[in-house]
Each structure stands twice: as structure tokens, then as C-alpha cells.
């Protein structure tokens, strides 16, 4: 238990809270890597998932991209760094590869699972296909899309820790440096900061999900009929 005492002593030492290698700077760096990769992933996966989900063609692509999840992130990161040199680009590429599968699966299954009668009603009202996609299918698909976004963000945040192993910054710096210097207080202190940031981000994303999802789509877990799970949701949310 003394390890934790030392870790907290490290954590609350004033020198950890200022300067370019202090905790606040590292948190921002870490969130920066994460945001960049998730945004790039969204730019790629959201339109593709929407088109495939709306047209129903190319569903095999989602399955193929899903197989990317089986690629070990540490290996991919190291390979890209050896190929491209140390820098933000290889790390971001590796993180984007991680972010795409949950985002694509969430968008695709979100759009696919929109009640067909709702889409038909929109079509019957004379809405054009593009408008149906944007105004009907997209809002109805939001719970699963945001589930995918949550899964992608947390996975990228977790993996961004490893960026420090290939000489980048971020919160992994404390963990890796501590391991090299045999300074376990720094390693453990760093892991505590990462855990807190991950939990805070998860909380924010859950809040976002509550705020943007239409009230008619919310499920109430205390109501028995709302508790039925579809494997698709598990696959998306826990990816």
C-alpha cells in the first residue's frame, strides 16, 4: 500500500503541476492526440457508415473493417513508427485505425436499425433520399452512433498512452519514464491520472449522449420491456 502513498506524494508535488512536462500539459497533449484521431476517424467512418447503412449495399465492408479490431495496437504503432520515423503522423494513423471500426459499426448499425416504417413514412411524405438520411435516419441512429463514438474515444485514449513508448508525449510519458527510471511512484501516479481522465471523459460522453438523443429514443433500464438487448448494441458499445 506504501506504493500508493508514494504515488500520491508524487502526484501532489507542486513541480508536477507546471511546465511543459507537468500533468496539465500532458493531459492536454493526451486529449489532443485523442481528439485528432477520433475526429479523423469520424470524418472517414461517418459518411461511409451512413451511405452503406442507407443503401444497404456494402455491409460486407463493415464486417471487413471490424476485423481491424483484431490488429494489436502496440504492433501497428511500432511498425508505423519504424516505417515513417518518430512523429505525430504514425501515431495518429495507428489511432485512427483503432477509431474507425467502432465508429463505422455504430453508424452502420444505427442507420440499419432505424424502424423501416419510419423511413417509409418519411418517403411517403415526399422526402428525398438525402433528406431522409439527414433528417430521419441520422437522428434515429444517434444512440448507436454515440455508443460507437464513446467506444472509439476510450479505446483511442487508452492506446494513446502507448505513444510515449515511441518517444511521443501525453500521459503515457509518466508511466514509461517511471518504468525506465525504476521510479514506480511516477508510473503509478501517471496511471492514476490516466484513469481519472478516462473516467471523466466517459462521464462527459454519457452526458452528451443524454443531451442529444431524442427523448422518444431513450431506453429506461428499469422498465422490463426496455431491457431486451440486441447483440448489435453489445458489439458497438463494448468494442
Amino acid at each position, binding site marked *: *500500500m506504501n*506504493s*500508493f502513498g508514494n504515488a500520491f506524494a508524487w502526484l501532489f508535488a507542486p513541480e508536477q503541476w507546471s511546465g511543459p512536462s507537468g500533468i496539465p500539459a500532458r493531459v492536454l497533449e493526451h486529449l489532443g492526440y485523442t481528439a485528432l484521431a477520433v475526429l479523423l476517424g469520424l470524418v472517414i467512418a461517418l459518411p461511409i457508415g451512413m451511405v452503406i447503412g442507407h443503401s444497404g449495399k456494402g455491409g460486407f465492408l463493415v464486417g471487413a473493417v471490424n*476485423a481491424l*479490431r*483484431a*490488429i*494489436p*495496437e*502496440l*504492433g*501497428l504503432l*511500432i*511498425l508505423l*513508427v*519504424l516505417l515513417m520515423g518518430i512523429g505525430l503522423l504514425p501515431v495518429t494513423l495507428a489511432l485512427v485505425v483503432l477509431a474507425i471500426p467502432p465508429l463505422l459499426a455504430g453508424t452502420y448499425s444505427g442507420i440499419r436499425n432505424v424502424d423501416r416504417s419510419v423511413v417509409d413514412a418519411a418517403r411517403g411524405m415526399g422526402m428525398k433520399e438525402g433528406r431522409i438520411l439527414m433528417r430521419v435516419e441520422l437522428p434515429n441512429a444517434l444512440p448507436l452512433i454515440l455508443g460507437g463514438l464513446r467506444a472509439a474515444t*476510450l479505446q483511442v*485514449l*487508452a*492506446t494513446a*498512452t*502507448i505513444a510515449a*513508448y*515511441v518517444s511521443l508525449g501525453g500521459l*503515457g510519458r509518466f*508511466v*514509461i519514464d517511471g*518504468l525506465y527510471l525504476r521510479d*514506480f511512484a511516477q*508510473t*503509478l501516479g501517471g*496511471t*492514476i491520472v*490516466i*484513469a481519472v481522465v*478516462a*473516467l471523466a471523459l*466517459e462521464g462527459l460522453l454519457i452526458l452528451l449522449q443524454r443531451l442529444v438523443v431524442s427523448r422518444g429514443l431513450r431506453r429506461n*433500464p*428499469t422498465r*422490463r420491456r426496455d*431491457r*431486451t*438487448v440486441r*447483440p448489435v448494441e*453489445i*458489439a458497438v458499445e*463494448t*468494442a
Partner: protein
Amino acid sequence: MNWLSRNIDAVLELTGYHLVIALLPVLFGLVISIPLGWVANRWPVARAILVPVAGIMYTIPSLVLFLILPPLLGTRVLDEINVIIALTIYTVALLVRSVADALAAVPPHVIAAADAMGYRPVRRFFGVELPLAVPVLVAGLRVATVSNISLTSVAAILGVPQLGSLFTDGFAVENYDEIVVAIILIFLLAMVFDGLLLLAGRLLTPWARAGRAVGAAK
């Protein structure tokens, strides 16, 4: 790929370690999450505690959990037991809600029918409710298995020997072959075990196919 033929023995040994570290947690996780899921389904209070706790555990990054466990358990950082326990925690966190939800989704008339046939609660659970939860369980187990096989490699940073060790070693000596071989092997292992679970799920739920066949014949 000369590198592989020269190092085949070491690669096979690391593959063995890798599978033990990645798959034991799937087994442990399954065994632990079934009773926990049952409890969560049975008592709303238990559910209100277990499901959020599972969510929180699942949110903690793997490298963090690998490193927080040693001081808690009194183990050394490079002991594989930390990784096995961490991955077991993830597997339980992933499965517990699925099990609870799947059990809640068993239609009341099915339970009533089993009761009427004289099933006692324990036999009803293993003979009726649990089999009906198999599709959801298998979906969760597949996600857990694929992610465990991939996450295990992260433990190489701590010096726990498994296929991920080829990444750190290959990085140190800039050996591309070593890294590519390990990526492909880990990918293939994940695909193979994912496929095996899919197959096991199909074999365990023959009624699902029978239902589809009837539906198609209509």
C-alpha cells in the same frame, strides 16, 4: 520471412504464453459473470451497483490496470498474473450486463412453462434460462476474446513474455520481420478463436436455425 524459420521455437513458446494469458481470463470471466449476472437480474439493487461498476472497470485503460494491480496484490510488475487478472476483470465487466439483460429478456411464459413442467429453479436456470442467453453470451465472449488476444500484447511494455515481446524486441533492433510476424500471428489467433466461438454458439443453439428455416419456408 527467414526470421520466422530461424526463430520458430521461440515464436511457438511465446504463442503458448500468449494464449494462456489471453484465454484463461475468458474462461474465468464466463464462470464469474454468470452468477453475477443472475444476481443482477434477480435483485434491482445488485443491478444498480454491478452494472455501473462494470462500466467503470471497462473504462480503465489496460496499461493502467496492469500497473495498478501489482501494488494491490503484492505481485511484481512483470508477473503474468496481473495481466490475467486485469483481462478477467474486463471480461467480467463486459459480460455481466449482457448476462443480466439476456436473463431479463427470457419471456415470462417460457419460465411459466418450465415451472409447469416441474423444473426446479436451479434446473430451470441451467436448462432453460441460460441456454436462451447463449446468443448474447457468445456475442460478448467473442468481443472479449478478440480484445484480450490483442490487449495481451500491451503487457510487453512491462516485460511480460508473450507475442507482444516481439514488438518491443523488434523495435529495439529495428527488425521489421519480427514485428510483422507477430502482428499477423496475433491477428490470426484472434480470427481463429472468434470463429470457434461463433461455431460453438451455433452448435449450442440449434433451435435458432430451426426457427429461421421455418420462417423461410412460410
